[in-house]
């Protein structure tokens, strides 16, 4: 039960984060908003890290540099997400973001890129993606 609550809160926070970035962008500009939220988020995460002393900093050496660089994508992610919210609203942008996200993850899975174990797309995944795209089309219908 508590797990469900956490998951629901997690999803709500993700939407809230996108909206907050869009709102701050109206006043400060988009790159400024992206820099500000991540700077303050970084400080808080660092404090949590120091408080719980959780993690293994020496292990960073064992991760490929390419994977370490993943965090920098967030700049473009936030910028694009804010622009999308401004242009088409929160619902439509969230829907399209989710589809692209799931599609990329499953492409990578099916080809076994980045050293992930290869996994075959099965019929339910194709039907699922099809339904999701149909949902966005219905949404955009005028």
């Amino acid at each position, binding site marked *: 039960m508590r797990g469900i609550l956490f998951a629901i809160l997690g999803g709500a926070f993700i*939407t809230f984060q996108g909206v907050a970035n869009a709102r701050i962008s109206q006043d400060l500009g988009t790159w400024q908003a992206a820099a500000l939220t991540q700077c303050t988020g970084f400080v808080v995460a660092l404090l949590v890290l120091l408080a719980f002393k959780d993690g293994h900093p020496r292990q960073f050496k064992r991760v490929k540099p390419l994977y370490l660089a993943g965090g920098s994508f967030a700049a473009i992610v936030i910028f694009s997400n804010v622009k999308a919210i401004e242009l088409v609203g929160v619902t439509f942008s969230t829907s399209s973001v989710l589809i692209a*996200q799931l599609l990329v993850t499953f492409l990578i899975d099916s080809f076994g890129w980045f050293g992930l174990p290869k996994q075959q797309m099965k019929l339910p995944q194709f039907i*699922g993606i099809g339904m999701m795209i149909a949902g966005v089309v219905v949404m955009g219908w005028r």
Partner: protein
Amino acid sequence: MLMGLLFSIVAGALVGLQNIFNSKVNEHTGSWMTTTLVLGLGFAASLLLGVVFEGGEMFRLNMSSMQTWYWFSGIIGVGVVTCVVQGVRRLGPTFAISIVLITQLVTAMIWDTMGWLGLEKVPFSWNKLAGVLILIGGILVFKLGGRNAKTTEKVHIHDSI
């Protein structure tokens, strides 16, 4: 409409890629270590791109338009990580991430309809509700429809969206 879709696709594709990279970092270093790194790099990249595209304008902040809560918006990201990690730990990735995605959509629709935080209101419509319901059905079929336990689903939605 088209531009909005294009921006969404760029964001979604990069989030998908980033989740995979982040989970690789996470396997070795732990979730708070990863979160700190991810946010720190995201900050550096935003600063850099801001300067590239806007030059000195990047630092000409109009402090009078700065509301107090803007300073605390970064905490939301920390809330995201905490909740998603806890959810996944208790429910397993497939079930937890399904709930996360569905809640994202439902709250998005509520937000559009209410126009909270002074965001432009996008009025509720029945076809939007129908679209969201079909989409949620698609997520459930996609996530719960027979597939082996997956590694990439150990995602930590560390960031951004």
